[in-house]
């Protein structure tokens, strides 16, 4: 699995000081971003259009967790360890909807359906940006630019 491949000390370093991601790792990141964007967009469409479907709970849940999680973690230049990135994605993906709902309760403006749809739409857009970025310039520079201090 590409994401699980750890950096080694002698991995090639680009001339500008950054380290190019291997193609397979970039492909995996691109795939995850595309999947997150697709699921989030589908979830947003289901929620905002009020579609009742047996698939709706699963699509919306995956969209909320994976979509919002990857929309944040996907921009970080983390060491390519699937467990590490996955745990951070899960934690952020769970926390973002919780934080949004906390704001709704504290502001006494409880509109869970509309806000969930909007959140899914935003995460779909952010993930789409990630897809574009990975596709165009080969993705963000990998970790290691400044080294560990």
């Amino acid at each position, binding site marked *: 699995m590409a994401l*699980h491949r750890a950096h080694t000390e002698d991995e090639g370093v680009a001339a500008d000081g950054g380290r190019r991601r291997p193609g397979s790792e970039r492909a995996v990141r691109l795939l995850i971003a595309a999947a997150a964007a697709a699921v989030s967009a589908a979830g947003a469409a289901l*929620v905002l259009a009020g579609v009742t479907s047996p698939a709706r709970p699963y699509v919306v849940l995956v969209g909320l967790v994976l979509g919002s999680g990857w929309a944040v973690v996907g921009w970080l230049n983390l060491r390519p360890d699937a467990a590490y990135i996955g745990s951070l994605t*899960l934690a*952020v993906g769970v*926390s973002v909807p919780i934080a949004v709902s906390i704001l709704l309760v504290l502001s006494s403006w409880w509109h869970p359906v509309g806000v969930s749809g909007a959140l899914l739409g935003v995460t779909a857009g952010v993930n789409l940006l990630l897809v574009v970025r990975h596709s165009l310039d080969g993705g963000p520079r990998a970790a290691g630019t400044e080294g560990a201090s």
Partner: protein
Amino acid sequence: MEPRWTRRRPVLPQLQTASGASITDRPPPPAVRSPLRHLTRGASSDPLTPYAPLVLAVLGVVAWALSVGHLHPYTAGAFGLVTHLPALWWVGLLLVTGAVALALVPATPRTTVVIGTILAFALVLHGTLSAAESTPRFEAAYTVAGFANYIALHGHTLPRIDARFSWFGMLSGDGMASTAMQVSTMWFLRWAPLVFELAYLFPVKALANATLSSPRARWAAVAIFLAGNWIDQDYFSPQAIGLLLYLVVLVVAIRTFGGRGLQPRAMRWLLSTRAMRATRTGVLRRLYLPLDARPGEALPDASTSRARAALSVLLMFLVAVLVISHQISPVALCIVLFFLYLAGRTRLRTLWVFTAFGVWAWLSWAAEPFWSGHLTKIFGSVGSVGSTFSSSVSGRAVSSSFGRSVVEFSRLGSAGLIWLVAGAGVWILWRRGRTQWNLLVLAVAPVAVGGAVSYGGEVALRILLFSMAPLAVLAACLIDGPYLRARAVAVFALVGLALVVLFPVARFGNESFEAIAPGDIAATNWIYGHVPVGSTILVFARDEPLLYSHVGDYKTRELGLVVLDSTSTIASSLPHRTAWIFMTRSQLEDGIVFGGLPKDWLTTFEQKLHQMPFVRLVDRTTTASVYRISSRVHPVHHVVPPPKLHPTRPAAHPPKPPPPKVDHHLHQRLPTVHRVQPKPAGSGTHTGTHSTAPHRTTTTTAPPGGKVHNPPPTFGTGGSAASPTGTSTTTTTTTVPAGPPPSAP
């Protein structure tokens, strides 16, 4: 992959034992010649052989799936479900355990194979209850779902009703998600334990990756975590999500922001004093540990300053969500982060301050209803670690029944075993010249939670929960390193097997009273449909799903041991105004297991109730019964106004009450429940057995006055008519198919 630190330090340092001899002078012991080594050696010649563990795992899952249908969780006794597990279930467990062991034979296990086997292992261990029980288990999970349902319907909390509403982060998130998903908040409950266990595996594996050097040991840590985590705090709850956030924050803190042991200046000074140095040397010599062992953890991840800054903000965000979602998890996180800072294991030197401030700020501002007037209760046992542990550990071991004692001792044994093997893992690794201070701090620091908060008898469980992930990784230290020692492998295998064998006893041991039967939910729905809002409902113990909806509508009172008293004593202790009694199978088992009551206490109690003219059985399902206590207050001397349901409503022309907000998805997944004929009041002795006629018709009459909820759609049809006097009478006719002879009560 060769671990980074071995490349940096190819030659082991000269390590000294207490006698002064250098232990690196000894040649390394021969690698273990596993009887299963042909599986790894034959990988190139036979492409299918490496996938043998996967085949075993599939066979195990098939056996498990076939066996689950034969489980009867609602008849579990003091031993829990373990005595009811069919032989096929054990075969399934044996097969998946063997599959995991086989997958871990190669030094670098195949990722797909080991993931497949671990998924099967998790399914058999943590998915059994979810698969076997047709309705979600555990009363606390229903309460969480009820709280979330309330927020989903109303958009605000009820902190005066229940203190847990003050930490509503997870509840509001659940409410928002369930509304957007168009499901009930109970939708999450059934498979939540398995999902959470799988989610925890990510940070556990990340922790193992950051601390252990061999891929085999890293995966073994994951398996040990699954087998050792019997703690049953993975139901859909704030603490389940809290544990995930807790672990992730700590993994990031020691991995991306890991320190290399540079303690704060005061700590360095303290450690450099002659007394401390002498103590350290003495302790290490007594433990036969080398004096100059080096850090065994991996180097902190290389990352850009921008990435570190972003991660810092992200960690603060996670901490903030954790602070608003759960009471004890952020306290534990604060303590562990503080000790990591003291030990110089993280560069996040102020995150513990931020966490402490967050806990204090939230407690002061939003959780004021929780602490005002209860300060003694909250801080009463602060600092008294000993008494807290004695009440939660030794107090639990003393049980009234043999079965319960077996369950409790198996839990203590499992916990003790994992602590023991974790200690052995640290010791062996240290003997080889590698320390594991990160894991030690993560495992031991949560013990301080016992002295920092007042959490009753459960605090030891919570501490074990916080320590479980690092303990599992420490246990895997036994088989970490470039070569294996036969004794270490044997010990690790035996401990792993013992944990697997103890798991069903420890994890399924509470099933007699924690399983919520469909009949319990049907009776609860009857209460929602017929009992007026504001009524008092008497229960024996809180092992019932009364709060899964309609939170705040009813007052609940526990009867306690009054149920054993004579009829006249019970009658005098019952309320004089209209009230209700709700008894379930789970409460019956609770009384037997924890109260030491006789096995027929509920039948006897119900017989006494039948002798009281003012108590009438109004609903009975296969596992629950509802009684109505009529008002005995004299109408002349005590003018009691009817329950105020819709204030300022004129009595002469009562308008139709607005339809209450009813979660229409709530009852979609509830199974068919066999409802039985309630016996008329005063009909003599009640044996607790029921008629098995092909079809029964039950007619119940709701009490006059008060708001009556819509009856749940899953059973019963009926109509409601408002009388001119403002009272309403509801007649519910229920036709149910014949069912098997019901169990107790």
